[in-house]
């Protein structure tokens, strides 16, 4: 029996290749995700181990606001340099160095633009001399205030050399010019550590520009004397410096830093696994179909097995065994492909992040286990239904040409209706926000059920729709035959089309949601921002682009400018809760530019100890005018502010507005955006060049008119959309494989019939056209389903997000049309090989075909 199964499998290996390919692609995604995250994880481990190499113990002040890795680079707060002396005096300390290191030092390259970072920090530090890690490659260390050294990677990126005068942007001041006096590299010949850019100043300059306080540092690096363990020294130093400090070993620091990155990576991993799930869902349809067709083709053979004594269980296990074999082979190939893809992505990521030195490629056990588990389980689950059907073949079928009767669609339709209803209910619960913590799971479950339900309903829909679609092609005999063929087995057509539906529905749904969001945001901005010109930049890393606040005053002096507002923002702890706070250089902008209206108090002015809150915040926290709230910002001590006004909350207003003075204590104390309102009758074109000129020293930002700004903001969603579409394209590719597969198997199945058609005079080209029409009808049908289901799902999500400010529902008609057109092309492409095969059928051989 086993041998019969395996031999039958081998004889059909070609037929299984295509369905196996779907599993290979799914498994590739899954294992690729694990390989990628493992490789990057170990890369970061190595990077941070290097970065903290030679540090036995590190002393830092406790941060004012705890930030997660996703929210940006943590800069430890400054503390008096006297602490360094205190640490140095601890017994067992061999060396203690006061270090200044903070994110936000940006070099302006030879092209006049700030060297961008796509994730790694841009550190501004004090030069503490060469070490085990840092070696000067050229020049010397900085001796004077106007001198800096930079790392080799930054020098290469900015195309600058020793001796150049360069501009440097720092978080706390305007652009300043420095002379590069040295370029350094790292141990092992590396040009950067993890793609980080480093600019090192003399200590006083670093204190002024990076910390904003003279005579301070923000960490102390300690080396232990020989024979003193890092742990015991850590405890000794901690006792010496007291509770205000966090004392950690270098190992701890590097582990913590790496753990933060791994958290971000695991998020990335989940996204990749999500797409793998989509690919596998589509693959499941494909395998289900392949096995159904194979079982149908083997009816006589399976009936024979039954006639000569095979039990039902043996038939089921023979089909399942085939599935296990296919799953196993596909998993092996998928794993290999996944390792390749993981390596490729890791390499791409490394390059994008500025030349990461990747750790060796890792294949974690999770990748191997998940590859085999997913590959085999999916294949077996998909093959189970056909296997059960196979076991129900009566032995008598071995003796008769039993035409499999067209089973009624009632059962499957009822099941489809029920599953769709369950999906709808889950979606309703999830989108309605009634599912609590399980909202995401509920929504995903709802989408999954909706897909399966619609797939089950598809056979019923397929008859009329396929007939209708087919009518378009029915003008020729081959076209008519193709149309009839596609309606011949509604289940098979339905599953093939449903596979395509999933991918297209997801793309359409995401497009509907993002387009609606974009349109809503644009619409809102058009209506509500009363500023003719906007200063902003495109954010490339975790740190937003900023500009020199001095520009604001100069802009205000330009004739025709009525109001100028610079917006600052940061995460703060307000009344014990982490809250996003903003500060406006011009408090009046809240009403005059952003259209907020007061519900209580005065929102047009703020004393240094007053704050404004939105009506939502006021309601949630029970605040009213006169309430006092303690606020802890990234720098300085907690301060108590008095609520002096409450304004209507809208999409454009921040929850909490602090006075402009507070921005000094923000992590980024420079404006992120600027809004300029012109006096009536002033031409935008007259003012814009003047503002542009003022921004010459702030190369990260530019000034744009309002429409361009809105377009720029909205277009940030375009990148996201493109990325999702590319990833979902994989699901569509798998579905296309499904169409090829179904057609190829149908052609095999109908060999005799095709031979007959050829014998009575159907030309080769006509045969090919017949197959092509069948393919086009199936794929257009699938695309149509996908567009309808996707638009429906998208619309449901948009409806649910109405309260979040997505008020417009945009159906991307042109894109939906493109999908249908593409589906027709896909059908033609998918038909190529099966059609050639059908056309090549030997007439005589086919008629004799058993």
């Amino acid at each position, binding site marked *: 029996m086993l041998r019969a199964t395996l*031999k039958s499998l081998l004889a059909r290996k070609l037929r299984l290749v295509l369905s196996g390919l779907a599993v290979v692609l799914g498994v590739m995604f899954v294992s690729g995700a694990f390989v990628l995250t493992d490789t990057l994880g170990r890369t970061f481990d190595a990077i941070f181990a290097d970065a903290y190499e030679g540090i036995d113990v590190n002393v830092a002040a406790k941060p004012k606001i705890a930030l997660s890795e996703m929210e940006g680079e943590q800069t430890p707060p400054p503390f008096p340099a006297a602490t360094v002396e205190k640490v140095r005096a601890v017994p067992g300390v061999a060396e203690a160095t006061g270090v200044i290191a903070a994110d936000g030092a940006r070099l302006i390259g030879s092209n006049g633009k700030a060297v961008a970072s796509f994730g790694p920090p841009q550190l501004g530090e004090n030069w503490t001399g060469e070490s085990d890690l840092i070696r000067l490659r050229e020049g010397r260390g900085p001796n004077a205030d106007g001198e800096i050294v930079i790392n080799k990677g930054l020098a290469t990126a900015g195309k600058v050399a020793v001796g150049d005068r360069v501009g440097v942007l720092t978080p706390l001041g305007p652009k300043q010019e420095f002379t590069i006096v040295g370029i350094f590299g790292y141990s092992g010949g590396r040009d950067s550590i993890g793609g980080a850019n480093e600019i090192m100043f003399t200590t006083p300059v670093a204190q002024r520009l990076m910390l904003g306080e003279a005579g301070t540092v923000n960490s102390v690096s300690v080396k232990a004397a020989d024979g003193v363990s890092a742990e015991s020294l850590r405890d000794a130093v901690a006792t010496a410096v007291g509770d205000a400090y966090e004392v950690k070993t270098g190992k701890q620091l590097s582990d913590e830093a790496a753990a933060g990155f791994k958290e971000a990576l695991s998020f990335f991993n989940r996204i990749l696994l999500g797409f793998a799930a989509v690919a596998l869902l589509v693959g499941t349809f494909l395998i289900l179909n392949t096995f159904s067709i194979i079982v149908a083709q083997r009816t006589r053979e399976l009936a024979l097995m039954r006639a000569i004594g095979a*039990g039902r269980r043996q038939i089921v296990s023979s089909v399942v065994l085939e599935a296990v074999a296919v799953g196993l082979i596909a998993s092996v190939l998928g794993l290999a492909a996944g390792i390749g893809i993981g390596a490729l992505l890791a390499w791409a990521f490394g390059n994008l992040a500025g030349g990461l030195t990747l750790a060796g490629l890792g294949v974690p056990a999770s990748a191997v286990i998940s590859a085999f588990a997913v590959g085999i389980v999916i294949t077996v689950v998909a093959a189970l239904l056909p296997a059960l059907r196979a076991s129900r073949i009566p032995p008598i079928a071995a003796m008769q040409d039993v035409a499999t009767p067209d089973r009624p669609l009632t059962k499957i339709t009822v099941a489809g209706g029920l599953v769709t209803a369950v999906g709808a209910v889950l979606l309703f619960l999830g989108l309605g926000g009634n599912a609590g913590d399980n909202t995401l799971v509920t929504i995903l479950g709802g989408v999954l059920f909706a897909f399966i339900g619609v797939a089950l309903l598809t056979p019923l829909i397929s008859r009329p729709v396929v007939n209708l679609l087919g009518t378009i092609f029915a003008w020729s005999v081959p076209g008519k035959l193709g149309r009839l063929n596609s309606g011949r087995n509604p289940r098979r057509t339905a599953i093939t089309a449903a596979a395509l539906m999933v991918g297209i529905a997801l793309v359409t749904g995401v497009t509907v949601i993002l387009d609606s969001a974009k349109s809503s945001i644009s619409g809102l901005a058009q209506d509500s921002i009363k500023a003719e010109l906007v200063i902003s930049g495109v954010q490339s890393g975790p740190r937003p682009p900023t500009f020199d606040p001095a520009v604001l005053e100069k802009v205000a002096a330009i004739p025709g400018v009525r109001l100028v507002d610079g917006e600052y923002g940061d995460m703060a702890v307000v009344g014990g809760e982490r809250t996003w706070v903003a500060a406006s250089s011009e408090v009046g902008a809240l009403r005059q530019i952003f259209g907020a209206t007061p519900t209580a108090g005065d929102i047009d002015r703020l004393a240094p100890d007053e704050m404004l809150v939105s009506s939502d915040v006021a309601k949630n926290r029970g605040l009213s005018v006169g309430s006092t709230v303690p606020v802890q910002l990234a720098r300085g001590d907690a301060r108590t502010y008095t609520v002096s006004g409450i304004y209507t909350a809208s999409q454009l207003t921040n929850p909490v507005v602090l006075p402009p003075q507070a921005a000094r204590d923000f992590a980024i104390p420079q404006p992120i955006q600027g809004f300029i309102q012109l006096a009536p009758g002033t031409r935008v074109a007259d003012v814009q060049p003047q503002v542009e000129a003022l921004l010459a020293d702030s190369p990260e930002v530019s000034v744009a008119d309002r429409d361009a700004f809105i377009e720029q903001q909205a277009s940030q969603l375009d990148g996201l959309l493109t990325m999702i579409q590319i990833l979902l394209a994989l699901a569509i590719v798998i579905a296309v494989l499904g169409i090829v597969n179904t057609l190829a198997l149908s052609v095999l199945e109908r060999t005799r019939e095709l031979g007959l058609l050829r014998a009575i005079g159907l030309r080769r080209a006509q045969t090919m056209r017949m197959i092509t029409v069948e393919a086009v009808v199936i794929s257009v049908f699938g695309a149509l389903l996908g567009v309808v289901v996707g638009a429906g799902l998208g619309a449901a999500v948009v409806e649910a997000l109405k309260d979040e400010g997505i008020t417009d529902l945009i159906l991307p008609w042109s894109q939906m049309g493109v999908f249908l057109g593409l589906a027709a092309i896909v059908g033609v492409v998918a038909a190529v090989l099966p059609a050639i095969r059908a056309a090549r059928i030997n007439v005589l051989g086919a008629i004799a075909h058993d």
Partner: protein
Amino acid sequence: MTATVGRQAQAAARASDVWKVYGSGEAQVIALRGVSAEFERGRFTAIMGPSGSGKSTLMHCLAGLDTVTRGTVSIGDTTVTGLGDAGLTKLRRDKVGFIFQQFNLLPTLSAKENILLPLSIAGRKPDPAWYDTVIDTVGLRDRLDHRPAQLSGGQQQRVACARALVSRPEVIFADEPTGNLDSRAGAEVLNFLRNSVREHGQTIVMVTHDPTAAAYADRVVFLADGQIVSELIEPTAETVLDTMKKLDAPTEVNG
């Protein structure tokens, strides 16, 4: 035509008052009308009749491939009627062998693997002496590693015969075994079937519409219109043909 207790022990297969009705109402077709018959152990019985006489239906019911509407069927001491799928599977595995008109070999397996397939499905080892005997009787020793596609029709049918014989079933049912063969290959297969009855005591029930084929049997049972209408012992092609002619005439009038 009820049997005595003494003869019952000798019957390899038995049908008692078997009715088979397909469909209902207007579309109702009565394929068998109260057929009772016994097929003795160690004999080669042919079932004959014109198209639509119910001969294939009778065989399918006897073999447990089809259910009867009324009456009972038994094979050896097993009552087939009323058996569930598991019972039927066991019956087919242990007591019944089949030879089909279309040979029905698995194209992916070699001749030898095809022959041993029923045993391997049942998880049994072949009896080497009996296996050798079967192989020598069908004369396929030098073709055992060939695939069905590499064998002639006659050879394929001999492989199918060997497959049916190798598990020593209580009874072998052959459905038009020579229907797809030329006369020479057909004669080979029929000779082989007769020999396995004469020399090894195998019981064979064969459905055919070919008088020459029926002449190889020990006994011929004639069916017309769902009923047994005649019977011949030690038939020759001539006597079979004569009986057929007599049957045909009234059938055509009735039909």
